[in-house]
């Protein structure tokens, strides 16, 4: 029936009431209030729609894509907020780092959803459920936000599963049980079944996915057309062989190094981290960006992989700043865990526009001298390649304290 050589494990991760949750995180005083993120309600005369409604607002009948004026009427004590895309994108970037720490096979759908193929993570992290738990807790830790996760052998079933018991749900559909899992669910949950198709199916007496699966494909083809009929029949059996297609658009600038032999030697870790920091800083400067949050990635012997983040204030494109932040984190890791490290990586996240003009900072180092040194190194690297020049000793932690 299925030509796939081995079964896959797919997670569908869906952030719960994402926009609303980000708003609550920024403004805790809104917690528990009905929140409506969308266009300007203009005192009930606004013409736009609701983007996201919190569960409190949904309880009052507010739905996504509903006219904002209707929401205004339904929800006199609702809090109406404009859509703040940059803020959601920043959280989204953090969430994607969590995904990428688990598997490179991540297919984001918008800012708040993604498919993860964790088939190969199973050996290292555990089965699908273990991966799902890891994703949930890592996202919670990195962002304070809650998600729902569906675990299944394919994308379609995983997506249905994540949606089934929101919020904060974890629904696992073991391989082989897809059909019985789907059977009692409404046909409206099938991909591609819109209002029209749903009405046609209901006219045929098909209300649940199970009923649909029992119908001969020819019945469905007559009602919905050949292609749609076949596709729905396949989905209704719980089959879906579409692959998770990673999105290569960069959400961060990162570099990592795998050691030739696993190590906990402080000198060699410092040196490596210093090089990574310089590389990342160089890339930042090339793009006129600065790093506002630095992420340290580390993999223990045995391949267990983690990340830690540290905000940089002010945002910086200067290697030693990135090194210092990364080294603080790495030192904490070494202190807390006796294992040797197989890999370390640094990524610049929360990218900010590059360092501003020439104004001196009160609470910081004398940046001018450092900036001139950076510029000189960049010029050499641009002409002779990235390895043409390194900072002396590449142990920036020993620089004069500033």
């Amino acid at each position, binding site marked *: 029936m299925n030509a796939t050589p081995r079964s896959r494990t797919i997670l569908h991760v869906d952030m719960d009431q994402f926009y609303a949750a980000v708003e609550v995180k920024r403004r805790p005083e809104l917690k528990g209030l009905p929140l409506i993120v969308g266009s300007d309600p203009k005192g009930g005369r606004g013409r736009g729609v609701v983007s996201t409604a919190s569960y409190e607002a949904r309880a009052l009948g507010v739905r996504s894509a509903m006219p904002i004026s209707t929401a205004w009427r339904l929800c006199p*004590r609702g809090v109406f907020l404009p859509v703040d895309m940059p803020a959601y994108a920043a959280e989204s970037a953090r969430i994607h780092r969590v995904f990428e720490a688990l598997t490179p096979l991540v297919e984001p759908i918008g800012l708040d959803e993604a498919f993860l193929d964790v088939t190969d993570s199973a050996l290292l992290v555990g089965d699908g459920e273990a991966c799902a738990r890891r994703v949930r807790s890592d996202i919670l830790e990195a962002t304070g936000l809650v998600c729902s996760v569906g675990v299944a052998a394919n994308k379609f079933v995983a997506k249905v599963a994540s949606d089934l018991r929101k919020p904060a749900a974890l629904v696992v559909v073991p391989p082989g049980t897809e059909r019985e899992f789907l059977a009692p669910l409404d046909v409206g949950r099938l991909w591609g079944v819109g209002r029209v198709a749903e009405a046609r199916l209901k006219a045929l007496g098909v209300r649940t996915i199970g009923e649909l699966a029992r119908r001969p494909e020819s019945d469905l083809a007559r009602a919905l057309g050949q292609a749609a009929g076949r596709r729905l029949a396949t989905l209704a059996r719980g089959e879906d062989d579409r692959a998770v297609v990673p999105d290569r658009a960069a959400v961060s600038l990162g570099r990592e190094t795998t050691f030739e032999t696993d190590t906990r030697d402080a000198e060699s870790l410092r040196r490596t981290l210093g090089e990574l920091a310089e590389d990342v800083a160089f890339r930042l400067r090339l793009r006129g960006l600065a790093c506002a949050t630095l992420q340290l990635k580390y993999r223990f012997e045995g391949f267990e992989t983690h990340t830690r983040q540290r905000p940089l204030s002010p945002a910086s494109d200067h290697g030693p700043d990135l090194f210092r932040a990364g080294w603080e984190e790495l030192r904490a890791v070494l202190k807390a865990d006796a294992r040797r490290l197989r890999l370390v990586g640094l990524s610049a996240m929360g990218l900010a526009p590059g360092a501003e003009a020439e104004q*001196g900072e009160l609470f910081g180092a004398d940046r001018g001298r450092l900036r001139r040194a950076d510029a000189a190194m960049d010029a050499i690297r641009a002409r002779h390649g990235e390895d043409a020049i390194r900072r002396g000793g590449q142990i920036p932690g020993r620089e004069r304290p500033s």
Partner: protein
Amino acid sequence: MKIVSTKADLSRVIALALGAVSTKNVMPVLTNLLIEARDHSLTVTGTDLELGVRAKISAEVVQPGSTALPAKKLSELVRTFEEGDVELSVKDGVKAEIRSGRATIKLTGAQPEDYPAFPTLRKERSIKIPSETLLAMIRRCAFSVSQDETRYILQGALLQGDPTKIRMVTTDGHRLSMVEKDATAGQEAVSCVIPAKALQELTRILEPKEDAATLYVTENQLFVEWGDLAIFSRLLDGQFPNYDQVIPKKNEHKLVAETAPLIAVLNRMSPLAADKGNSVKFLVNEDGLQVSAATAEIGEASESVDVDYSGPSMTLAFNARYLLEALKALGSERVEIRLNTALSPALLTPLGSDDGGRYVIMPMRA
């Protein structure tokens, strides 16, 4: 409910509470003012949940009760009334009828029960300060609050009280303003960071008087009582930078100038300083001070200023706006600018009349 008040009283109390009503992003019920009548007084409350203002006036209460009426409409209407008595009666909590002169106005409001309660605070730590002193402190340092949203904690003013002093500090990371006043006797130790919006609201609402305002500080809220007015604000949560560490202690080179002429010079240089982060150049030596500015392909300007200076010759650059704002905030006839090097912070202090203001400005790299 039913009350009789005057146009003057009503419009004043409405204007006070209106400032806390946000024009956007609020709950529908918060577009209203909460109006409560009881015990010979009328209380009007506006809030956006982060900040709230409650103002009370005495009024003839015929029948106690409450309602919530559309803030903007109410304010617009009352302003147009003729002087004299205004009668407000409300049925079923939401149906208001307002009579002024021969006009009758009917307004539909919201249920007062839907209006969020004004927070009642455990009045733990407090400081008392004459409203005129508080206003002067805000005026002397609110301008250097950070506008940078990523520097959350700098978007407010640090208020610190100890048994002898009250201090307010703001900084945007490039400059710092500090005002210090003597504490009133029995002063408790407090420390909190007040959001810029609350400072702005305080300057709008308080009048400069000797009457003391009481500031209650809890873990996350500030509550100010001044006569019949009450204001609450959320506090900023976080660690304010160690400001004392950037206030120069050893700047030895003193430059003394008349404030007004220096402001005039900086104003003249500013148009040509616009490009490079508002940078103006200071060339200072025993001959005096030469201020200059230049914008490539547009033009340049320079002017000499009479100063007392006995240190080494130095060339510095400053953001002209930072200097201007600090000089204006000093409010003194003369200013002492203490310098160390061209790239270390300059300290501005008032000479003559000292109102407690200290200003630190980080130079630019020329």
